[in-house]
């Protein structure tokens, strides 16, 4: 196993990612919720109890961050993992060397996932800090019933893990999409709408195939009260979001399947676009 070559490609991918303007555009998009929260806290009248804060925090993380911005960031990077190099024709340098094609793909995937996970967690932490800190906590807790004992730090640690899992999951799926079609944008939007919007809300077994559902199961497993947010009838909630339950194994299965297919595709297909000129 050419460890030196793998390490070189790993750190090269990270350095190129951080140097590219695309990274800072994606970072800005991930930090949008924070800007929103800042404006709202500045202008809003002081809150009287924990409930509105709890609801705003979890809906911002669940619906805006995990379901919206994170998949978008993973789409931009996932579809371009191989496509970007092929388009700039620099892919030729990477696949005519010491590393097999699948190793190139895996190394770039892990490097990209690492950077995106850290970026996602940083954005999440910023969101957390801007929402939760700066309140007169004891007086709020006194006036809020069941949520008085809410420990935001515990929820943050859970969400940091869920975000990382989300990044790995979405990036794997979009890497596969990038290899499946020359126009990955259309296919990605189709996947997001069908899997992450429609199927994830159907009361049917197919939910398991949606990453968002698995992320919710993982979060709900560690934060039981979270299910209140999904407004589902009780017996359905218990079946779908069991306390202590976890979507990690199912999510990792999706990741594994996506990567395996991607390995096969990257091995059998020509990645260098052929330049054809005819008289």
């Amino acid at each position, binding site marked *: 196993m050419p460890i030196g070559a793998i390490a070189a490609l790993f750190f090269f991918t990270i350095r190129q990612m951080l140097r590219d303007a695309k990274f800072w555009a994606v970072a800005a*998009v991930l930090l949008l919720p924070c800007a*929103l929260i800042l404006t*709202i806290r500045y202008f809003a*009248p002081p809150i009287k109890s924990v409930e509105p804060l709890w609801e705003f925090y979890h809906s911002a993380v669940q619906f805006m961050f995990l379901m919206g911005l994170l998949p978008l960031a993973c789409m931009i990077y996932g579809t371009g993992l191989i496509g970007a190099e092929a388009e700039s024709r620099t892919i030729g340098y990477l696949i005519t060397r010491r590393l097999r094609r699948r190793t190139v793909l895996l190394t770039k995937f892990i490097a990209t996932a690492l950077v995106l996970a850290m970026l996602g967690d940083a954005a999440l932490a910023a969101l957390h800090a801007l929402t939760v800190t700066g309140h007169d906590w004891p007086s709020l807790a006194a006036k809020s019933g069941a949520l008085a004992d809410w420990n935001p730090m515990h929820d943050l640690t859970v969400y940091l893990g869920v975000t990382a899992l989300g990044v790995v999951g979405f990036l794997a799926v979009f890497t596969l999409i990038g290899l499946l079609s020359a126009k990955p*944008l259309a296919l990605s939007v189709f996947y997001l709408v069908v899997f992450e919007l429609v199927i994830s809300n159907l009361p049917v077994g197919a939910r398991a195939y949606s990453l968002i559902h698995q992320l919710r199961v993982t979060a709900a497993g560690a934060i039981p009260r979270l299910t209140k947010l999904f407004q589902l009838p009780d017996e359905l909630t218990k079946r779908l979001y069991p306390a202590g339950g976890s979507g990690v194994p199912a999510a990792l299965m999706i990741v594994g399947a996506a990567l395996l297919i991607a390995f096969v595709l990257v091995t059998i297909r020509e990645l260098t676009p052929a330049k054809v000129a005819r008289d």
Partner: protein
Amino acid sequence: MTTASADRAHQYQRWQGTLGKAHWTWPAIVVNGVTLSLKHAKTRTMLLTSGVPVLTASGVFYVISLLESVVGTEQAKGLYDFLGAILRIDISGITRLAEFRDVLWRSTFLMVTKFQMFWVLIVVARVGAGLIANDLKARALPIYFSKPVTPTTYLLGKWTVVASFVAMVMLIPSLIALGLGTVLAGGPETWGQVLSLGVDVSLSGLIVCVVAGAAVLALSSITSDQRYVTVGWVAICILPILAQRIINESLPPEVTTGWLGCISLRDDIVVLTERLLRIRQGLAATGLPAERFNQALGHAVEPAKAAVVLGAFTAAAIFMSWRRVVRFSRTAATV
């Protein structure tokens, strides 16, 4: 005396014509941009389908005129509900419809403008995103700047391409609907009212052309990859709308009618259109209780503030694209 020489065609012949003034090349840029876009079948179908909802407006005008002729009878009930559903103005039981016609027509156009925003988003993304980006990617700028074309002429030409497509989506179908409506519904006495409505509709259409054109050109001049421009354009249009919704829900009204209410371009344009079509005054003048029509109106933001935000944004976009194009013309366009 014919100078018959075999390879006459292959001899280089000088040309004695005269070249026009340099500034008059921007129409050529417009014609070129429009024809190139219209070559794509998808763009053509998109343009056709985008006109349909506006033509339904003339259908609404016809229903209004029908209601006037049959007011007080049994059928009126059905027509009231129909108009109420579409215009979200509850006018059931009103008999003196003649004075209402003007405000009802204006409300129809407001509804149409809100709906057409969606089409503007798509059509401008399709035809506008690549206008400068593709020139950069194909390194075609030397063609423009080795000829006596100035950056301003270049930008004016490219902007007019976007403006003409936005006009095809908003302006022209609206004027057609207006024409159809007057033929179907109004007699000669309504022409004065129709003329002023036509002017207001054109003005609001123009605003959309200016803002959309400037925004997409600024984005298109940043990168040579058209896909990033499309994503950027969709983001500029949609994200602020979501943010505005959240702010409107979680902040008190006295804040959200001020500067904080003008975050999204779409909402600003709707506010300006309401002001231009004088809908708020029109509905208030009818004497109907407020709750009957406030659903038809957007969030009550001061139009002046919305206009300032739009103006500032457009000026910034124009300045940015102008600076980028001047830089491209300076460095033989290597991005």
